[in-house]
């Protein structure tokens, strides 16, 4: 099987390499790709939308419809993961593990047992893996705010520099994931519960699709942000720029929440009790 696979792949690859013979050279400024559609974007973006980052402008305006479905893909991945893995009935484990914070001694409490009254000195820990590292926790606490600030900057500054809703959203989601890794899944769930996450990712796609629908209500085509000029009290070009910012924020929120929910589901295999 191995050799068969190798030979098949090798033949297929040689065929593909034969296919590159008539490709225009790499980086050729005269190739059809560089001369047919793309010059319009490069030369007109500033006039049409006043957004210097051409990629953002094309992503959220010229081909904004694709990006709406990109958000929908992420949304359906979130729901799909929830649908496949989430176990609705909570099955309680037979025992719980607690650690005495001062000494680091671990207690195992059998089913039906109760904590001693001085419960504040104990913290619950995972059954499978019991990390206790002050350095990781502190570092996590220290850098997470900076990561989040950076993520918000990336979302907001997507007009002028690389970045935008999607990248910022992923970084924002990663900060929550980092929190869940450096502490544990329960404390992450306390701060960002499942329902809150679900609320956020529907909110994100509502913002995107809602902006598009608003444009229809204002008498233009779907996602034609220039129609927003009448309610934002700006000229149509600036309205496009603002429209792009609004949908980027929507994308950011949706992506952040989906990354978090995907992580929660995968790491706890749908049980939402303990994780990495």
């Amino acid at each position, binding site marked *: 099987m191995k050799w068969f696979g190798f030979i098949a792949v090798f033949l297929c690859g040689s065929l593909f390499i034969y296919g590159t013979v008539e490709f225009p050279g790499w*980086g050729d400024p005269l190739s059809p790709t560089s001369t047919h559609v793309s010059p319009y974007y490069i030369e007109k973006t500033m006039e049409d939308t006043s957004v210097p*980052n051409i*990629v*953002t402008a094309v992503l959220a305006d010229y081909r904004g419809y694709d990006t709406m479905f990109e958000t929908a893909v992420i949304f359906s991945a979130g729901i799909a993961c929830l649908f496949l893995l989430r176990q609705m009935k909570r099955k309680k484990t037979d025992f719980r593990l607690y650690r005495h914070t001062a000494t680091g001694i671990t207690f195992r409490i059998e089913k039906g047992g109760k904590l001693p009254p001085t419960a504040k000195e104990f913290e619950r820990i995972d059954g499978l893996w019991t990390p206790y590292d002050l350095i990781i926790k502190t570092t996590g606490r220290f850098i997470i705010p900076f990561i989040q600030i950076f993520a918000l900057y990336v979302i907001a500054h997507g007009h002028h520099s*690389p*970045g*935008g809703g*999607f*990248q910022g959203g*992923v*970084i924002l*989601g*990663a900060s929550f*994931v980092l929190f869940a*890794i450096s502490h544990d899944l329960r404390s992450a769930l306390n701060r960002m519960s499942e329902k809150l996450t679900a609320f956020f990712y529907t909110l994100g796609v509502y913002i995107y699709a809602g902006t598009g629908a608003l444009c229809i209500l204002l008498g233009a085509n779907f996602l034609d942000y220039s129609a927003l000029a009448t309610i934002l009290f700006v000229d149509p070009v600036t309205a496009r720029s603002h429209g792009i910012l609004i949908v980027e924020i929507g994308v950011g929120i949706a992506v952040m929440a989906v*990354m978090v929910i*995907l*992580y929660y589901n*995968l*790491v*706890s*295999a749908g049980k939402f009790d303990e*994780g*990495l």
Partner: protein
Amino acid sequence: MIWQLDLIILTFVIFCGIGAITIKDLLGAAILFGAYSFMMSLLWAIMGAVDVSFTEASVGAGVSTVFFVSAVFRTTRRTKD
């Protein structure tokens, strides 16, 4: 853009890719896949695709690796090939 640099990183990418599918430990494969994605994002940055590179660095090298590690954590590290 310097094509020699591009070529060197391309070689790295290919080796990381081969490593990710041959190593006999799923956790190692997940980490190597992260390295692969990171090298890939460098490659794209060299080619001037800054936005794509940014996305790949955050998605491929960041979140995807976490997903792989958590899936391996919930299943098994063992693999026969």
